[in-house]
């Protein structure tokens, strides 16, 4: 008999940097019943997590291999690197890719041009400015479609 919640295909998720983005991602994953660990060098940052967050919290430097190995990076399936510094995120992602080849790594970048330094490492980058442009163009597209329908 399996007691407690029936966890279907539990994923190990690691979130690095408890920025607002990191905190909401961690809270979301914890809500989806995945096993989540969040890392930040500043303990005070964890207040941003939702009160229902039931994952692990670890204090540490995300570019320090010793600190990273404390949170079992090798066993992670999904990793989100979301501090608010591009250089930190890039170095952290490259370090993680070296010790964990199978995980999906998502990196937050502020400057989309910096993507080039991670070419060939199978690391996904997500940049707010790019998302803005995409969203705007899709909204504008919809609007123009609507006006065309009205004209008809």
């Amino acid at each position, binding site marked *: 008999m399996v007691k407690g919640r029936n966890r279907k295909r539990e994923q190990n998720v690691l979130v690095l940097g408890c920025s607002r983005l990191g905190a909401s991602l961690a809270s979301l994953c914890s809500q989806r019943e995945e096993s989540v660990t969040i890392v930040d060098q500043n303990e005070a940052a964890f207040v941003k997590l939702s009160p229902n967050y039931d994952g692990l919290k670890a204090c540490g430097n995300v570019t*320090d291999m*010793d600190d990273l190995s404390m949170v079992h990076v090798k066993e992670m399936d999904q990793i989100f690197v979301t501090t608010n510094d*591009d250089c930190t995120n*890039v170095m952290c992602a490259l370090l993680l890719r*070296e010790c964990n080849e199978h995980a999906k790594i998502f990196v937050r970048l502020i*400057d989309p041009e910096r993507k080039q330094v991670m070419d060939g490492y199978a690391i996904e980058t997500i940049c707010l400015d790019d998302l803005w442009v995409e969203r705007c163009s899709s909204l504008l597209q919809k609007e123009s479609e609507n006006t065309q329908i009205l004209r008809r």
Partner: protein
Amino acid sequence: MKEKVLIVGGRAKAKSLAQSLSARGMMPVLINKSEEDCQKLMEYRPSKVICADGTKPYVLEDLQMEAFCQVIALCPRDEDNLMICRLAKNIFPKVRTTALVSNLANKKFFIRCGVDRVVCAVSLITRMIEQEAFMDEMRLEEGLQIVKLDMEASDAAIHKKLWELSLPSNTVIGSILRQDGLFVPQGETTIMEGDQLVLITSDVQKQEAIQILKGEKSDEKQRKHLFW
């Protein structure tokens, strides 16, 4: 044409490096993101000081025409230096990159990430302090060291030619300091009293080499004296 070197970040280090590079006939260009640091760097008038953030791709792309052969990253944060070196590799063809790291553990990782040369200031300084403070030995890379040896009249190798001594395989006498003159010895060189030898040897063969040069262990020698 003068070789162009781009130095990113660093204040005191950037300044003295730029000075020494221009003395060697190269042309250093400095980038620093702090305006105050740039003012300081300008005082010494190198070829060019640019006030910008060198971790930003467009800053380096603007310099693409300069054809730098070397990029040296001296920022205090390791992650910034990694970004600078990886961008430089993409932007300047055939460039050689050198990065400063503050955490020694990052040295090998940086090399795996394609940085050509990595210098860890902290470990260099602690190594130098250790040498100055504790011994006449200097550690080279992996298992090699330099040993300074003062020769006395009673030592085994005195008045012997180098070829007569069967020194272990991984050992050479790099130089001899004799009466304030320094020279590199040959096989025919005779070791004299008062010579100061500089030995390059492996960790393993150091004791054997010293024994051949100095003779029996000093405690045995002392015991002999007691017999007399």
